[in-house]
């Protein structure tokens, strides 16, 4: 059974709903959300509350649940 989550764009404040299969990865979510918002080619991370999600983990391994809200953040590169 699929899992429906909400991804929040930390920069725009916008949200989108996403249906996930348990074997999809956190990186799949990052890539799909960045594409949806037509983000610049830069580095992004995804967080759930106080945890930065490991991009290699599957949705199941990351313990992503129905109705979880994940936040897409640009990873600041400048110095």
């Amino acid at each position, binding site marked *: 059974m699929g899992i429906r989550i909400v991804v929040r764009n*930390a920069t725009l404040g916008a949200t989108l709903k996403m249906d996930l299969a348990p074997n999809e990865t*956190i*990186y799949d979510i*990052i*890539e799909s959300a*960045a594409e949806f918002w037509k983000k610049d*080619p*830069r*580095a*992004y*991370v995804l*967080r759930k509350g*106080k*945890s*930065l999600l*490991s*991009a*290699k983990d599957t949705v199941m391994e990351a313990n992503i649940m129905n109705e979880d809200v994940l936040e897409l*953040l*640009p*990873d*600041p*590169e*400048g*110095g």
Partner: protein
Amino acid sequence: MQSFYEQMISVKEYDKDRFDRSKRIEWIDIGRIQSGRCLVVGAGALGNEVVKCLVLSGFRDITVADMDTVVISNLNRCVFFRDTDVNSGTKSEILAKRASELDPDVKITAKQMRIQEMEDWDFDIVLGCMDNISARLHVNAHSCYHCIPYVDGGTDGMLGKIQVVLPGGPCLQCAMNRSHYNVSETRFNCTGKSSFYAPKMAAEITTTSAVAAMQAREAVKIISGRKDMCIENIAYYDGISGETFIMNVKKDDSCENHMNEV
């Protein structure tokens, strides 16, 4: 032995000690800070602010590595650079000279080199003030290998990030994903000459200053022996809302920087 608060002093003697007010923060160990050896990688906006904070915090042995020269557009956020510095010497040299004026007891060594050329990693702490992912990965790998605590900073307009990497803990690479490597490859490939290309990003002093201050504060904690008080593992700063939140990073056991750990 008398505690700090029990020491006998004459009137206003406390105003003769440069670090009197710092010493009033009980956990700060000025003795260890004054003997700590710091490497600051990058002498741009973050590098300027980090070195300023380190010197004023009491660090006396600082090495700054950067090979770039000053350009006019640096002057909106680099406290130690002047118009007369444009194209006249490297950032590391100028930063070392000007920051030394803050405290006559500080020794700041300028290394005019790419960080990939650095051979001596004999430091107690490394502070990353770079503007690209590949240099960060290089410094991260060397810090992990040499078991040196590493505090990385990054900015993007009004956003900022501070990551604390302690020996044995999750590192920068553990927190990265394919989007980081895609960006890193773009930087090297988009000129078509295998040379490095850094896009010009939004940057201003208030966010730079906030991020650098947090980096230096983590260095003060680490060198004072208070790793227990450090950020675990990333502080993310939003200069618009003024919010800072903490994110924990899971250590990636397949990360090449942790493969040889016992």
